[in-house]
């Protein structure tokens, strides 16, 4: 329908459309290999978030997660980077807390 935005499910099919992943009981709820890429954000408490693949400055990605860029260091794919570095694709960003108190 024109003008209606349909959200895609985990398998790339719009809501309301038949989806082999969503509609197949054997696959439903199970992560299947995807051809799409996504950035991996590893937080200081070691939790991992997926943050999409669109290129964005590290600073914006941190701010979206509620992290103040001056309180952390960030490595991209194992190398230390500045907060104005552009990350994207399947980059792995690790956020390192720098303040330990005490």
């Amino acid at each position, binding site marked *: 329908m024109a003008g209606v935005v349909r959200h895609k499910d985990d398998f790339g099919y719009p809501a309301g459309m038949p989806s082999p992943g969503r509609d197949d009981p054997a696959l439903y709820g199970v992560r299947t290999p995807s051809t799409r890429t996504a950035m991996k954000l590893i937080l200081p408490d070691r939790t991992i978030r997926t943050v999409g693949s669109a*290129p964005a400055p590290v600073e914006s990605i941190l701010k979206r997660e509620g992290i*103040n*860029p*001056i*309180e952390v*260091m960030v490595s991209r794919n194992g*190398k*230390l*980077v*500045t*907060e*104005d*570095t*552009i*990350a*994207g*694709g399947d980059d792995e960003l690790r956020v*390192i*807390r*720098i*303040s*330990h*108190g*005490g």
Partner: protein
Amino acid sequence: MKKEPVRKVPCCSVCGEPAVIRQRESGRHLCGAHLAADIEGRVAATIASERQVAPGDCIAVALSGGKDSTALLLLLHSLFSSRDDIRLVAVTVDEGIHGYRDETLRSAEELVKRLGVEHVTVSFPDLFGETLDTVLQGREEQACSICGILRKKALVTAAERAGATKLATGHNLDDEAQSVLMNLLRGDLMRLVRNSGADSGGRFIPRIKPLMYIHEKEIAAYLMVQGTWSDLPECPYAVHALRREVRSMLAQIEYAHPGTMLRLMENKKKVETAFAGKPAREPLGSCRQCGDPCSRDLCQFCQLKTTLWG
């Protein structure tokens, strides 16, 4: 073969190599090597302009094994290890904090061994008869105040045992700016203008803070590029501290207005200058119990000792 997308990395403003840090006040990007050179130069400049070290000094470097004290010892070792007229001794306090201090103590021991620096360690049980964990049972809310007073006493004792003429601590720009703000919030003008680095006429070991103009983030990056960064645990008592709230608030302001921390320090200097020799400064007397220099009848340690142990 998968083709890597080309995404530009900000480059060092000096040499063009990939940058590891952006200095927000100036907008300058620096690579690991130029960050190290920049920090070493600024620490040397602080030591010179504040007259923190003189020929013949024995500098006790307070080494907890955390990032700031590790960076401090590395930097002072780099600046002074070739000097015959300056001696460095690392001094460590083991407060007895279960699950926290053991790891940092190990890190401290490894560092002094690697650098070949003399090391003096004192512990709360040796000096005060019990660990900090025991002292704080039922007093967790006051953890940082109590620990601060006991740790200061322990550090001074260790520095005296080492024969030190200066006591260097790893307070960085963020710590110092937080302290200025905390003293303002508490309305504590005396503490704001107190200068523990001043020449004491031999009554106490002057404290020096060579990292006072280096951001915490720069210190972390410096250690990472040197390969000496350890992701150590946070002190379990830090959750009770006013400093934790001030740190977060100030970091937000610094992010929105780069240079705020430096301006707080500059203003502190102006206040210090304005009050130099004025009666707002408390006269230095002696503690009636232990004789240590203090501005009241009893020093903070003796007051606390009475509260804790009668």
